[in-house]
């Protein structure tokens, strides 16, 4: 099974779960499965058109899915899918 790592700021929406195991075959399917399990996550990850929010990044291993096949990026048995919030600031 592939593993989704939930970032710390979103764990309040996953009953404090750090990880989520999935048999989904693509990133898009895996995220939908996660949202079905924890519906409060939806607004944090998807916009009103159900597209991934631009300030949330998704990595399979060390690769940004934008450089792969986006939502259709395949997930293998032992893949790790990380949900990563964009972090910035300054003066």
């Amino acid at each position, binding site marked *: 099974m592939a593993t989704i790592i939930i970032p710390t700021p979103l*764990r309040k929406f996953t009953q404090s779960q750090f990880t989520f195991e999935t048999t989904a075959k693509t990133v898009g399917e895996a995220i939908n499965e996660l949202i079905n399990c924890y519906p409060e996550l939806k607004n944090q990850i998807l916009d009103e058109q159900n597209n991934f929010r631009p300030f949330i990044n998704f990595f399979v291993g060390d690769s940004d899915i934008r450089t792969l096949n986006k939502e259709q990026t395949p997930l293998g048995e032992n893949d790790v899918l990380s949900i990563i919030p*964009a972090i*910035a600031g300054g*003066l």
Partner: protein
Amino acid sequence: MKTITFTSPAWDYILMQAIKDFPHETCGFFFGFEEEDRRCITQAMAVKNASIENKERRFSINSQDYIRAEKFALQNHTTLLGIYHSHPNHPAHPSLHDLNNALPFFSYLIVSVYDKIFHQATCWRLNEEGERSFHEEELILPS
């Protein structure tokens, strides 16, 4: 009021980074534990300021460094509780840019450094209800 206490190793590390990186903004993560409204910070991790804008006024953290911080927390049975950055030659007050980029849950430590000399530090958390705004945490630093 929520309180956040930095242990000496964590605070000394952050301050050293803020001074070393001056006049650029320093940035990184900090880790520890929390009980109700109290957080205690025991470790910090400096990361590269990946901003492609003026690093004297902006910081950003790349995704690989964020993954590294989350893995560090999992492997060391600690919690990623926040992000620090410096304001070189400016007060330790959050900017609109800081507010627009803030995430819920995290504490945001701002370290003000003037000409490589520590000036002031403050810590903030995003209000999770109502208008988007910060509230200040009571910051306890080692004496």
